[in-house]
């Protein structure tokens, strides 16, 4: 092994890659015809997307009454799914921005896919606040724009309006960040492409030439965007939690919500990244880029955030008891032992108990355990939102109005449909762009000049990778 590896630093990608090998590995999926697995996955995802479109049209045409929500539980699966998706959309930015600022360089293996996931998750999340409106055709009312109705302005006191701003900002910044990262890689794809593809990628890479000036600007932009997105990671879910925390309903009206929601979001976001990465690395044969070390690192984040969430759950219970306020006490008593007790215990088991398995190094480094537990965590986080939203509303102040909620086929279709939407987007993404950031991964390659093949190169290295390159004709 000729890699010049500092003894204190771990290898971040395996397989003794050369620069060229990396390009080959990462760009080739966009160049080959789709595999059969991809086709099957895409067909299933597209079918669910179709179901989504159908269910949405049904809802808009007939009315929200097609859902199971009722006069007491006015939000249920819709907002549960919204918060769930938004939470999932947290890992990407966290990985890109915060880990970038903290110089956690292992992030480069997963950041591209995680960012893409963020964007797609936020797109899925955005469906719900829009289509849960009774009169979606008037959704533009929530935009503050000069108008002839007075002018009539939006209500800046409403957390729902803050949501609009928070999410649209988050989405645009994440998109910019993601795309900025993509530009050099798209240029790489362009350089290898011909014909129409080349034209397309030429456009999308904005004429990137790889000059030092480009790189310098690119680096600056990345840092600025990282700086902007860092507070966003914290703010978006904080603001989402305000939907509940600023309300007056016992069980919602809690100051602990912002940090608890953020931790939960990171938790579920990493779980979703795990789910996707485990599949992606296998299917696209990227095991050497997304290594067990990545998986282990992320599992560490999961066990940390899962424990934070667990502490938050227990704090809630304590505070409810300590408050001496009967409505608050009842709300939490009901949360645990009430009509939706199964959701609470499901949440506790999935979010608090199951991640503790990751204290074991063996489980942390097991692909199967990771995959299984990431799904469990995602289910748990869905339950958490359901518990907070539906259970709380089902038993609020006036016992006369207490009711029960069951989803209808329409809501189930919309939810599974957004999963379809998500995977359609993700699968397309794996076909059109490198799922690992080529430029960034090359920067962490622990090789020195040994791979240099320029005019002054002497044939003294004789490493395998060079040989391979020679064979491939470069």
């Amino acid at each position, binding site marked *: 092994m000729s890699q010049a590896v500092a003894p204190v630093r771990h290898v971040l990608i395996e397989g003794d890659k050369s620069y060229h090998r990396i390009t080959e590995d990462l760009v080739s999926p966009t160049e080959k015809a789709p595999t059969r697995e991809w086709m099957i996955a895409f067909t299933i995802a597209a079918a669910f997307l179709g179901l989504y479109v159908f269910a949405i049209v049904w809802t808009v045409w*007939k*009315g*929200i*009454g*097609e859902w*199971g*929500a*009722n*006069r*007491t539980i*006015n*939000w249920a699966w819709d907002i549960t799914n919204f918060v769930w998706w938004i939470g999932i959309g947290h890992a990407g930015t966290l990985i890109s921005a915060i880990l970038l600022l903290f110089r956690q360089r292992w992030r480069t293996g997963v950041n591209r896919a995680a960012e893409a996931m963020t964007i797609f998750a936020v797109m899925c999340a955005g469906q719900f*606040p829009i289509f*849960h*409106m*009774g*009169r*979606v055709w*008037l*959704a533009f*009312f*929530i935009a503050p724009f000069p108008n002839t109705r007075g002018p*009539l*302005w*939006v*209500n800046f*006191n*409403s*957390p*729902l*309006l803050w949501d*609009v701003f928070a999410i649209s900002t988050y989405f645009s910044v994440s998109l910019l960040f993601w795309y900025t990262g993509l530009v050099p890689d798209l240029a790489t794809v362009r350089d290898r492409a011909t014909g129409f593809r080349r034209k397309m990628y030429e456009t999308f890479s904005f004429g990137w030439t790889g000059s030092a000036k480009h790189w310098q600007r690119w680096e600056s932009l990345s840092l600025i965007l990282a700086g902007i997105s860092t507070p966003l990671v914290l703010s978006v879910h904080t603001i989402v939690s305000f*939907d509940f925390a*600023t*309300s*007056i*309903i016992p069980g919602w009206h809690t100051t602990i919500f912002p940090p608890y929601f953020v931790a939960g979001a990171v938790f579920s976001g990493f779980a979703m990244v795990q789910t996707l990465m485990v599949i992606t690395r296998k299917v696209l044969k990227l095991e050497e880029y997304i290594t067990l070390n990545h998986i282990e690192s992320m599992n560490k984040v999961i066990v940390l955030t899962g424990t934070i969430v667990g502490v938050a759950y227990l704090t809630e219970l304590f505070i409810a008891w300590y408050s001496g306020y*009967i*409505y608050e*006490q*009842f709300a939490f*008593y*009901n949360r645990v*032992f*009430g*009509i939706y007790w199964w959701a609470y215990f499901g949440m506790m088991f999935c979010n608090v108990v199951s991640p503790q398995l990751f204290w074991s190094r063996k489980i942390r480094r097991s692909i199967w355990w990771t995959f299984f537990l990431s799904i469990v965590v995602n289910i748990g986080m869905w339950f958490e939102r359901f518990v907070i939203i539906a259970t709380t*509303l089902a*038993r*609020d*102040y*006036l*016992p*006369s*109005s*207490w*009711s*029960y909620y069951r989803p209808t086929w329409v809501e189930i279709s919309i939810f599974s449909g957004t999963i379809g939407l998500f995977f359609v987007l993700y699968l397309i993404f794996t076909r059109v762009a490198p799922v690992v950031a080529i430029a960034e991964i090359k920067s962490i390659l622990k090789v020195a000049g040994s791979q240099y093949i320029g005019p002054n190169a002497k044939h003294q290295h004789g490493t395998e990778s060079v040989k391979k390159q020679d064979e491939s004709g470069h």
Partner: protein
Amino acid sequence: MGEFMAKYPNTRVITYDPVSAAALLAANEQSFGQRAIPSYHFDQADVIVSFNADFLGTWISPVEYARAYAKRRKITDKKMDNMSRHYQVESHMSLTGSNADNRILVKPSEQGAAICALYNEVAALTGAGSIGGPKVNDKAAASMKKVARELVNAKGKSLVVSASNNVAEQVIVNKINDLLGNINTTVDFGTLSYQRQGDERDMVRLIEEMKSGQVAIAIVWGANPAYELPNAVAFKEAFAKVNTRVSFSGVMDETTSLCTHAAPAHHSLESWGDVEPKEGHLSMIQPTIAPLFDTRQAELSLLMWADSPNLNLEDEQPYYQYLKSYWASDLFGRQNKYSTPTAFWDMSVHDGVFEMPASGRTVSFNGNVSSEGVSKPSGSAVEISCFETVNIGNGQYAHNPWLQEMPDPVNRSVWGNYLAIPVEWDGVNNINGWQNLTDGDHVDVTIGGKTLNCAVVRGFGQMPGTVSIALGQGREAGGCGVGYGVNVNPWLGMNGNLIQYYAGDVQVSDKPTSTDKNVPCVQHHHTMGVAVGKEEDGKPYFVDEHAIGYKGFAGALTDRSIIFQAHVNELPELGERMEKFHEEAGHLNQQTLYPDRSEFFGTGLHWGMYVDLNSCIGCGACQVACVSENNVPVVGKNEVARHHEMTWLRIDRYFYGDLENPKVVYQPMMCQHCETAPCENVCPVNATNHSMEGLNQMAYNRCIGTRYCANNCPYKVRRFNWLDYTTADLWPANEERVFHVSEDDKPFYADNLVRMVLNPDVTVRSRGVIEKCSFCVQRIQEGKLTAKKETRALADNDVRTACQTACPTGAITFGNLNNPDSEVNQKRNNAGAFAYQVLEEINTRPGVKYSAKIHNSNEELNS
């Protein structure tokens, strides 16, 4: 009618009532020589004993009785020593029973025995002789002893009434009143009531006559015997033998569809007429609209068929002229208030009623009482009672969707009748129905060989060993009520040809035949914690349905600041408790980020309301008034079952106290118009906001339907248009212009006839928007405009909300809180610490105040 009978002397008029009071009439004739119902003065009675008489809901003249009854229930001062005490003897929780201070549970067949027991106790105390009679259950017998003593102590100021349809029992009740010195005081024959005159024994005779072919022509007017009679089958058979069968009914009901001729009469809102519901009270029927259809007033038809010489068919409104000349020629002479017939007529039309001086008639009890003829307890394991509901009656109103969708006051279910079964605590986590049945189960119930499949509802306060079900459902023809519930009239038996509204030997299938997951009930949680036993320290052990199971957590329900209740003897303690509560809440509410808006609200108008829970009897009139005033859509059984009902005003009903014999409190709940409304600051588009007059208002056009406001409303009064209930939605209503929709496919609210139900002053809401109580803002506006036109300041009571006008007991008062002299302010001040805002401590600052609920139960009876 007289003229018709003069022309056709063979005519006989036969009257029966949908729910009979024939025995009462007969007993009064026997005891007092008056075949009529006296005026009962519930306001003059210190002690009221009602044997199954639902006098607040359905019995004889409920509105009149409720108004009088409520006078003695209001909070007058800190002592309330004038409060009446009300005992209800019954097996099922009736509307009246739910308002009673004590309910004495007897099986339906024990009513006679209970009356005898009370008679014997009263007789023993007043020196009259015992009549013996069947024995009532021990608990009730013990209660009767105590009740009798109280009645005797309140001699001349007590009142005993019974709904029994057994002449012997009613005679005993008359004698009890006589022994108590109530005749001519609380039982007043000076003004007779004509609201019940029918006798079903005449119907039995008629059926015989029809069967034997003695009847050639039958005219049915204002009755539906093919549905209402227990022996409807016999009626139908006999009716078919009549050659000419004419109906005046405006709808094709069960009887009309058997007729050879339908002569639909005007609706009462299209008719002229006069009625005398009570002696000396001549009331006018005046049309509010020209006849919509090609109908003719029934009276006019009869007069025309009689070739009346007094009728001038050339007149534009012949019956109007006929009526007017009758008033001039006949009634005018019987009064001396007005000097000319024209003035007499005009003023009576103007006032709506003309009152003659009271007759001053007094009566005395004649004859004997004996327990002979008193019905004997059946001894069967399960008995059923069938009762009239306040909204449907015995089916007369079953075709009115507003009334069908008005929840039954007690079981809170809609669109149908439900078999109420007794409940018991399972010791762990649930209040189970008898035989482990629960809401939504359907069972087969067999009585006298007739089986019906009934939906079950858990009946709090239903006596063990009994079940009950409402009359009036299971209609087969005539309108929207068809297909809902079951017709239980065939279950009713006859005793001496008098209908008995109960039955024994009830067979209920062990297992449910089917179960509905969606129960069309608007309230699924019924209690505010009920006591099922005592904890170790002797305090009552409160439980509740689901979620609040185990010991030590009852406070979360019983201590909610939604209802405050106490015994009248504990008023000072309650006053202290509430003062402390107001103080604590006031302190909490000062810890706020909101700017103080008292200046904003303190000037000009500030609308507010006061709801007296002691006056509220839960009848639901306010709710229906609100629906009709505010174009609140009817959504139907399935949508109610999915909790999609649209009512702006609802009456929450909570059980509290002992599970076996719970007390009830009714709480009309509408938008509280909070000064710091939680709904307002969460709306992203400002669709709901506060007016300068303290109204929480909705801009429907601006609403995009996020429903955040509804979630954040602590009172859960906001209603969302889940589906296109009014067909007012953009697309279907406008398709007509684009696609030329045929008449049949037209959305129903595009139909001009249907649209007449709408109040033109109130917007019809479209799908996808939130709506809620507006404090009848259209009426406020109208009041202000009227005052403006008359160039005067707005006076108190210029504006009255729909619910307020409908309330029979004056429980709802509305007005300007900034006017210190307004009625609403006076009442709120009068109630002092007993007036509270629901959830006062959460700083919503509602514009509505309620009064604490005070009861006057005899605690000896419960021990």
